[in-house]
C-alpha cells in the first residue's frame, strides 16, 4: 500500500482570531490537502482561512523535557502583577 502524506490542518474561525489546529488530513500534495481540509473541516462555516503543513515538518518540544522546559516558570512568581504590593490609596493599577 502506498502511503499518502499526512498534513496538519489549521483554521482561522474568523478574521481577528488566530488559525487553530483542528486535526489532520491525508493528501498527495498541498493543493489537494487544502481542498480536502475544506471538505472535511469546514462544512458549516467553521472558518475563513485554512493552513496546512506537512505533519513531518512540524518540530515539537520533547515531551520528556516538559519538566525542564515549562516548570521553571511556576516558581518565578515575581513575573506576575500580584507579586507587587501597591497601597489601595493609589487606586487601580
Amino acid at each position: 500500500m502506498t502511503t499518502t502524506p499526512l498534513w496538519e490542518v489549521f483554521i482561522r474561525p474568523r478574521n481577528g482570531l488566530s488559525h487553530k489546529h483542528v486535526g489532520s488530513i491525508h493528501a498527495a500534495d498541498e493543493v489537494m490537502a487544502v481542498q480536502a481540509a475544506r471538505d472535511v473541516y469546514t462544512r458549516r462555516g467553521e472558518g475563513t482561512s485554512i493552513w496546512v503543513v506537512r505533519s513531518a515538518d512540524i518540530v515539537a518540544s520533547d515531551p520528556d523535557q516538559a519538566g525542564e522546559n515549562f516548570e521553571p516558570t511556576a516558581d518565578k512568581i515575581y513575573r506576575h502583577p500580584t507579586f507587587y504590593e501597591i497601597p489601595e490609596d493609589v487606586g487601580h493599577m
Partner: protein
Amino acid sequence: MYSQGLIGADGRTAETPEFLEAFQRRVDAEEKIEPNDPMPEGYRRTLVRQIGQHAHSEIVGMLPEGNWITRAPSLRRKAALLAKVQDEGGHGLYLYSAAETLGVSREQMTEELHSGKAKYSSIFNYPTLTWADIGIIGWLVDGAAIMNQIPLCRCSFGPYARAMIRVCKEESFHQRQGYEIVMTLAQGTPEQKAMAQDALNRWWWPSIMMFGPHDADSQHSDQSMAWKIKRFTNDELRQKFIDATVPQAEYLDLKIPDPDLKWNEEKGGFDHGTIDWDEFWRVVKGHGPMARDRVKDRKVAWDNGAWVREAALAHAEKRRTRKMAAE
C-alpha cells in the same frame, strides 16, 4: 455504536504500580492526556481499538443510507441525506485522524477493517429496505449515537474528546431530519404510517443493542470507566435513550415493539423486555444480514479508488519536479 469498540479490548498493562498510580491521578484530576504524554500501553491499545472501530462505524454507516440517496422522495430530502452522509464521512475522518495520533497508520486501520480484524457497529449490518428506514435511522441510530457520544466529549484522551465535540455539533441535524421523515410518514396515508411502523419494528431492538452488553456481562467496562474513556455504563446509556425515545414515539402514535415496555415509577424510567443477545453476538461476529456486503463494498471502493490515489501521487510528484526545475 461506539461502546461496542470496547468489546474484546485488552486493557492489561505491565507498567510499574507507581507509573500506573501517577497516570490514574492525572486522569482523576480531569487532566487531559495528549498523544505524546506517558500512558499505559493498555490505555493506548484500548483507545486505538475504540477510536478505530468508531471511525469504521462512521464510514460503514454511510452505506445503508447511501443506498437511498438516488431514491429520496424529494429534492429537499435528497439534499439533506447527501449532507448527512457526507457528515458521516467527515466523522470517520476526524476519528481516523485522532487514532493516528496514537501511532497507528491509516493504512493499517483500513487493512484491519477489510480483513475483518477490526469491527464496526453491529447496527450497520441490517438492511435498509424502505424509505422509512432512512427516517428511523436518523431518529433512533443517530439518537443512540448522540447518547453515546456526548459523554465522549469529556473523554480523558484529548484528540478523541476534541473530535467528539465536532461530531456532536453535527449530529443534532441528523436526528432531527430523521424524525421529520418519520413524522411525515406517520401523519400521512395509512400505508405510509404502516411503513413507518414496520421500520420501527425492525430497527428498535438493534438500536437498543447498540449500547452493548448489560453491565454485568461487560468485561472491559471497569478499566475504561476508571481511565475515563467511558463515563457511563452501557445500561445507563441504554436507559437514557429509551426514556428519551418513548415519548417521541408516542407523539407520532407509533408503537414500540416491546410488549414488556412500561413506566417504572420507582426508578423514574422505563423497564424494557429481554434483549436477544444471541442475535447481538451473531451480528457482532459478522453474521448480520448485510455483513458481507458492507465489507465487500468497502473493499471494492478501496480497490476501485487505487488508480485515483496513484494518479494523485504521480501528479504531485510531477508538479514538484517541474517546480524544482523552474527554480
